[in-house]
């Protein structure tokens, strides 16, 4: 959904985010929705400005989100609050699952397929009966086991998945979900989360009351959901709620992932991630059947649904990268692509630095000594490198760790013994360069340079372009096979000005795509081919530069008052300038809007095509009554009916139950965080059995209920100190607004421990200790969990030793652990100890005096 579409919501739940403070621009649309009568709910451990502006604030203990959301699902199912016409038609609620499926209810807290020795799952028993369902998420396919060259996926072309529309079959998704969530009663929600039953039930009622044909609701979340070992499953729980309530693909309905700081969305689209090629194509894996391009495409291309077009996108990408030299006879340069052997995300690479595997690192737009978990381990890793390049607009802790770092200050390392050759290079800020920012609504907006960057500062594009150019020169005469990829890379961007800046519009034109023969821009990804005649750097961005001289990202034409509200003339939203994904679901199965008030896309019988206020997310001329002819084993979109809006899924249905792709189960399940002061009250299984935990010296975890570390600890951002903090800390105007690091403690706990307001306080874990001043506040409250009091404390993670506003680094306290699916770190629910006073060596790094 578009950010501005939040204004059309009738109920907005902000959870896992302090949206008002950390996404204030987006929060304007929440305020507007409230002005129009919407109910705004904030579910969060702390009472923040978001809570203050909400109709309901529901405090829950960090790490208990699935218990809370599972409780909502339980209420929706047991009280029949779901939007039956929507969910029966558009979700897999009636699908029948394999006989061998067993739920954590009957299986000791884990799903069937669990292998205790390897701490992993097999997915066989999670499938639709007699089917093998490909995951629509390339990232998931890369991480799960190979499915023998896709042969089983052909089962999806033989017949529709078996269903029971009466919902009586014991293994239909509806019945499975009822059993799975049976324990998540309001009483249990209160015992696990600490949220009062009455508050919880008010939220359930508000959500249900504001869903259906006439009304829609939305969830907004940020890293308060993702930074857990069950982060993906928390989001899945919200997706189930929205699928049941019919809040997907409709005006004011959806789940808003609050990202967009520094183009985070853009960095997954055109990825800085290790496991995906641009626009969500899977990175080849050496252990999968990816030895040849043919094998890779055969294995990774789902036979049914829109992803059946994947070969067109993959080959067009190879043509964009390897140009004229990429031909069918050399697999279009496929062998130049590096193949994965394992998880090469940030956390494993940090540990690999410590082990001496990684010898050098480029740091662009990051400050990992402050922003990455287990800061001391990060410093140790950096100290083992041969070389380090940091590009930023001001000195960062990462760039001068060898001089001012904690390990140096503590005497564990000596600067003169650190061999890391460090290059600090000044970088241009956003206003000092042309380019795009992709916001959370997939909207790509162009921005122009307003002034020249000072001194030797250069844009990141300048740096990468010239680095690539020099590497190509360096390896131009090499005969080594390993250098062939650099030699083959197309790197022909025009240069501008005295600084020889690469033309960013040339990059955008390449991402958009063009015909190889005459290099004409391509207006739509439907025109991409798998024969090498088209080149495209990112298929989902196709249309952003549809013809020479027309940069759609530059467009700034809002709708007039009273207009459709989709603002299709404002910038470009991928794919196809579409604002709401799966918007076919805004009409009923026959193609008629669910209501006049919530109409968006509908079938125009007279014109024989889909029409609406947004770009329809469907085959334009496929009528609602189209049904696949199964006798012909249909592939691609032919296998999806005219009433199947979720076209990226193999059968076009919203997956309440996920048969493939998730590493930790087909349904969200409450597990305690690996570090927790309480026992899991729902299952014997204490924490996610497939969470990524890495035992190593310096990264020790606290055992569950370790009485040495009795308090829940959480980290967060501040409005005034943006991103990794450095930009606000070196700016006097913002630094003075948040001058020093602090920990928020409730008055009860402060009284117990003898901690005074603004007094020094030491926080400790097995990873390290820090000292900051205490902020005694009623914004945090003790929770009653399972009948006993549990205290939670929190502090901002954005401080370091650089800038005007300084303080100890919160991430010193955190261990490296990862979400089972994404490997993203856990920052929101660990445990710690707390005491008044200072560390033995005050006056060290960055401490206020």
């Amino acid at each position, binding site marked *: 959904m578009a950010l501005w579409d939040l204004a059309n919501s009738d109920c907005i739940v902000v959870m896992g985010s302090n949206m008002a403070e950390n996404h204030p621009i987006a929060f304007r649309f929440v305020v507007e929705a409230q002005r129009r009568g919407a109910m705004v709910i904030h579910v969060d451990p702390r009472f923040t400005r978001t809570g203050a502006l909400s109709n309901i604030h529901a405090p829950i203990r960090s790490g208990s989100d699935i218990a809370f959301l599972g409780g909502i699902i339980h209420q929706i199912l047991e009280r029949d609050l779901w939007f039956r016409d929507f969910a029966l038609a558009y979700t897999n609620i009636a699908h029948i699952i394999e006989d061998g499926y067993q739920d954590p209810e009957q299986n000791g807290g884990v799903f069937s397929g669990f*292998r205790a*020795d*390897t*701490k*992993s799952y097999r997915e066989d028993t999670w499938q639709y009966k007699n089917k093998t369902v490909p995951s629509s998420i390339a990232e998931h396919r*890369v*991480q*799960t*086991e190979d499915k023998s060259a896709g042969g089983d996926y052909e089962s999806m072309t033989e017949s529709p998945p078996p269903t029971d529309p009466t919902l009586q079959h014991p293994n239909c998704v509806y019945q499975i979900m009822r059993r799975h969530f049976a324990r998540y009663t309001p009483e249990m929600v209160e015992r696990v989360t600490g949220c009062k039953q009455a508050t919880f039930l008010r939220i359930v009622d508000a959500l249900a009351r504001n869903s259906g044909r006439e009304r829609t609701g939305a969830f907004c979340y940020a890293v308060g959901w993702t930074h857990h070992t069950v982060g993906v499953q928390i989001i899945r729980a919200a997706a189930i709620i929205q699928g049941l309530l019919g809040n997907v693909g409709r005006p004011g309905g959806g789940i808003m992932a609050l990202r967009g700081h520094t183009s985070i969305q853009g960095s997954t689209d055109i990825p800085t991630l290790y*496991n995906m090629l641009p626009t969500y194509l899977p990175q080849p*894996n*050496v*252990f999968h059947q990816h030895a040849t391009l043919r094998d890779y495409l055969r294995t990774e291309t789902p036979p049914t649904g829109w992803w059946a077009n994947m070969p067109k996108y993959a080959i067009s990408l190879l043509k964009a990268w390897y140009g004229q030299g990429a031909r069918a006879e050399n697999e279009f340069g496929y062998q130049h692509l590096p193949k*994965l*052997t*394992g*998880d*090469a995300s940030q956390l*494993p690479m940090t*540990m*690999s630095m*410590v*082990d*001496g*595997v990684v010898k050098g690192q480029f740091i662009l737009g990051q400050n990992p000594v402050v922003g990455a978990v287990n800061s001391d381990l990060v410093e140790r890793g950096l100290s083992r490198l041969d070389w380090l390049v940091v590009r930023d607009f001001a000195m960062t802790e990462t760039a001068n760790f060898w001089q001012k770092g904690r390990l140096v200050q503590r005497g564990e390392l000596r600067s003169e013994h650190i061999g890391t050759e460090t290059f600090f290079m000044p970088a241009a800020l956003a206003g000092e360069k042309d380019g795009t920012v992709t916001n959370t609504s997939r909207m790509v907006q162009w921005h122009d340079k307003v002034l020249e960057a000072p001194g030797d500062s250069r844009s990141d594009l300048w740096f990468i372009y010239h680095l690539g150019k020099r590497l190509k020169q360096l390896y131009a005469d090499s005969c*080594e096979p*390993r250098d062939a990829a650099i030699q083959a890379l197309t790197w022909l961007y025009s240069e501008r000005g005295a600084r020889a800046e690469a033309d960013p519009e040339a990059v955008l034109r390449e991402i958009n795509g063009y015909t190889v023969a005459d290099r004409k821009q391509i207006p739509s990804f439907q025109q991409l081919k798998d024969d090498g005649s088209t080149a495209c750097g990112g298929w989902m961005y196709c249309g952003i530069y549809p013809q020479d001289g027309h940069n759609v990202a530059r467009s700034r034409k809002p709708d007039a008052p009273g207009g459709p509200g989709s603002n299709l003339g404002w910038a470009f939203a991928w794919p196809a300038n579409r604002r709401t994904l799966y918007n076919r679901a805004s009409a009923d199965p026959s193609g008629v809007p669910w209501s006049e008030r919530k109409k968006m896309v509908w079938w125009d019988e007279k014109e024989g095509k889909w029409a609406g206020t947004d770009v329809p997310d469907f085959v334009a001329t496929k009528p609602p009554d189209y049904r696949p002819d199964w006798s012909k084993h249909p592939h691609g979109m032919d296998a999806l009916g005219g009433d199947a809006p979720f076209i990226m899924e193999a059968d076009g249905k919203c997956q309440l139950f996920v048969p493939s792709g998730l590493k930790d189960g087909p349904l969200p399940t409450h597990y305690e965080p690996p570090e927790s002061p309480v026992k899991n009250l729902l299952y014997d299984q204490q924490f996610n059995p497939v969470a990524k935990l*890495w*035992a*190593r*010296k310096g990264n020790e975890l606290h055992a569950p209920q370790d009485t040495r570390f009795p308090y829940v600890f959480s980290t967060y951002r501040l409005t005034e100190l943006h991103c990794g903090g450095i930009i606000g800390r070196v700016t006097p105007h913002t630094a003075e607004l948040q001058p020093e690091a602090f920990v928020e403690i409730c008055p009860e706990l402060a009284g117990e421990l003898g901690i005074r307001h603004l007094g020094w306080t030491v926080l400790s874990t097995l990873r390290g200790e820090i000292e900051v001043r205490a902020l005694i506040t009623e914004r945090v409250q003790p929770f009653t969990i399972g009948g006993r009091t549990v205290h939670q404390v929190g502090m901002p993670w954005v401080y370091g030793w650089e800038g005007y506003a300084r303080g100890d680094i919160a991430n010193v306290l955190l261990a490296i652990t990862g979400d089972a699916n994404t490997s993203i770190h856990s920052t929101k629910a660990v445990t710690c100890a707390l005491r008044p006073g200072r560390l033995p060596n005050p006056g060290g790094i960055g401490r206020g005096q």
Partner: protein
Amino acid sequence: VANNALLALAELDKALAAKPEVDGHVFSAAAHFLSLHRDGMAARQRETGATSESRRSLEHVNAVISVVLGAHFPLGSVPWTELEKARGWLIELTAQSRPEG
């Protein structure tokens, strides 16, 4: 050089003996010794000049490191079979480097 390879080999043997349990400490130690082995080979190559043999050896030890990382930080199943193969390559490398080590 050879000593680090032997130490890495010993860690790989421990890892394979513990199969299917994944011991992070063991894989970490294996990666550490393999990296020292690789760095030593690279340093020697810089000093004495590269030969086709030394290049191939360096590529092989890098391949072993890649497989060990894949087992330490797996995507999906732990590649035990490939780890067995990597162990074989390491034995070959050790045999090659022993006379010089």
